């Protein structure tokens, strides 16, 4: 903005003092050239907003690192990837990229030189982003402070270090193309779909990931265990899991944007998404996402989760579970699991603890957690970690108790399931 003002000032001066014109026009020509590459402030701020929606910062900024300078380690089952520098530094960042090349990368998953990008970069989602939005993100990234920092080579094990394997992955799991609005749905639903399926790249976690590290289109948003992190990303389409069919739009929107709601709170990897991305979105956009998410949830008669322990053991767990619950949980979550929403989530009727996968409930008991601190909930309440004070039996018992009490339709879990998660990677 400052440059624009100086330029206008110089032009005004040039008009009033013709003698100075030659000198000034030289300067303005040079500045005009520079000016050409600087997008209007409105485009840059739109790009910043969209970069938030795409959560670029979460991967492209390392802990204690410079903004967008990359270098963050991304552990995968195939080895460790290091994210790239996307600041406008010409040598080590994307300073020499054109808007066209940037769109090409977002849309096709190929780098500026045509090289194939590892699908840890969610280009299978970003391909849905419009050219106009891609250009705005490009303009924003060009406006941030350039950082000279070489990209660190990936550390992948054989055979995954062979980039040509990505071709096979792409054949199976990548279909290129911008989002096509569904004319039978409202503009709001379509905006929500565009954000959820595109920049939001929600499918990266909420669609099951197979042994080849891919998301199958036919399983979109059906939920799955996130590799390496050992959190279960629940299905967004099944009301038995995180399907939001019977949630109000307001509760969904609150959950996405503030991290807490009357129905539940976000922890773990989803806390990251709210913290770095969703809390910055407008009311209209989180509402649109809520409308879409509520729309894709399918009503189905809830199944009863299959217990992994015999019934006799289950009843022993229930009696120990109640003892533990009364001693440790009741004071916040209430005798009937009613909680004190939004800060103490209700457990009665809470889908996230009744799913077939009990991973999230066990982890919350072991490790506790804070929902993200957001503009809408700046001082969240923390669930205490009980790993140090409860035995595997007690953890299994209390998780069994909350999964099966007050009308909840989850199933009993075993002490060994609790034990396995003691060694889960925490962050």
């Amino acid at each position: 903005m400052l440059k624009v003002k100086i330029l206008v000032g110089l032009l005004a001066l040039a008009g009033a003092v013709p003698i100075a014109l030659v000198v000034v026009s030289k300067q303005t020509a040079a500045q005009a050239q520079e000016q050409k590459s600087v997008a209007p402030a409105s485009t840059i701020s739109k790009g910043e907003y969209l970069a938030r929606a795409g959560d670029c910062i979460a991967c492209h900024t390392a802990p204690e690192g410079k903004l967008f300078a990359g270098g963050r380690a991304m552990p995968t089952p195939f080895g460790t990837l290091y994210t790239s520098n996307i600041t406008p530094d010409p040598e080590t960042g994307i300073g020499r990229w054109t808007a066209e090349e940037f769109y090409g990368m977002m849309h096709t998953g190929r780098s500026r030189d045509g090289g194939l990008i590892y699908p840890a970069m969610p280009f299978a989602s970003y391909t849905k982003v419009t050219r106009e939005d891609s250009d705005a993100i490009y303009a924003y990234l060009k406006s941030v402070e350039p950082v000279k920092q070489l990209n660190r080579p990936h550390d992948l094990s054989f055979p995954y270090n062979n980039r040509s394997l990505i071709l096979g992955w792409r054949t199976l799991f990548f279909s290129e193309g911008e989002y096509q609005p569904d004319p039978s749905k409202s503009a709001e639903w379509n905006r929500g779909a565009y954000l959820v399926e595109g920049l939001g790249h929600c499918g990266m976690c909420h669609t099951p990931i197979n042994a080849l590290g891919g998301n199958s289109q036919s399983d979109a948003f059906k939920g799955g265990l996130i590799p390496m992190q050992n959190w279960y990303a629940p299905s967004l389409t099944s009301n038995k899991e995180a399907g939001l069919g019977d949630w109000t739009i307001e509760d969904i929107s609150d959950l996405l944007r503030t991290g807490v709601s009357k129905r539940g709170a976000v922890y773990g990897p989803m806390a990251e998404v709210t913290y770095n991305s969703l809390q910055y979105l407008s009311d209209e956009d989180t509402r649109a996402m809520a409308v879409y998410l509520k729309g894709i949830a399918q009503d189905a008669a809830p199944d009863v989760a299959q217990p992994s322990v015999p019934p006799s053991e289950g009843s022993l767990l229930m009696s120990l579970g109640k003892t533990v619950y009364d001693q440790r949980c009741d004071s916040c979550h209430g005798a009937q699991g009613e909680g004190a929403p939004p800060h103490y989530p209700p457990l009665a009727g809470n889908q996230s603890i009744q799913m077939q996968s009990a991973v999230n409930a066990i982890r919350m008991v072991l490790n506790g957690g804070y929902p993200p601190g957001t503009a809408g909930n700046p001082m969240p309440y923390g669930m205490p970690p009980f790993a140090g004070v409860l035995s595997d039996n007690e953890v299994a018992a209390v998780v069994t108790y909350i999964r099966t009490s007050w009308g909840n339709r989850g199933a009993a879990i075993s002490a060994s399931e609790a034990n396995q998660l003691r060694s889960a990677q925490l962050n």
Partner: protein
Amino acid sequence: MSKQIPIAVAVWSLLTLIPAPSQANPPNSAPDTMEARVQACTICHGDEGKGTNDVYFPRLAGKPAGYLYNQLLAFRTGRRHYPPMNYLLEFLPEPYLKAMAEYFAEQHPPLPAIAPPEVSQGVLAHGQGLVTHGDAARSIPACASCHGASLTGMEPAIPGLLGLRPAYVSAQLGAWRYGTRTAKAPDCMQVVAGHLTEDDVKAVAAWLSSLPAPANASPAPKGTYTLPFDCGSQPN
């Protein structure tokens, strides 16, 4: 909020003749206190941060807020590596971490009872020497030269050393020595700990944990004394 408070006050003043409801909080609402918010901390660090029987979870109560805030930031970014802490703090904003640090700094529960030392008098005497005088020949400054003559630290960021168990102090000095605990450059504790031997660490930890609580356990005000060398966490 700003509008709601005067209205609430007005309503209260109208209701002064009517018996007040017995509960300050409506049913099913979390108490609006820091104490309630930091239950995730106090399960390991004890109520009010006074410490627990677990020797590796340090007392937080009464440490300078600046020190606690620096540690919370270091755990949030992973500079201080302890996964259960790194995980809990990862998505908490700085103003909230500051409020947590201030909460624990303001708590002053009594120091725990002193456990009888498990080391010989000779080891204790060696510890006392290092804590109070250092060892100039080996470039080891006295702990007291930075942490204060009463070892209660100095505002804003130098922690007190009392009320900690020997296992915790040893583990921290060991972590500084091996470079797994670091702080902002110039990282004075890493330099100091680098001059210590394992026997020194054991002796210092034993002596510190044998000391009774001083009459005033609060950290000294900022600038009470000058540090003998530069320290990134507490610029002179």
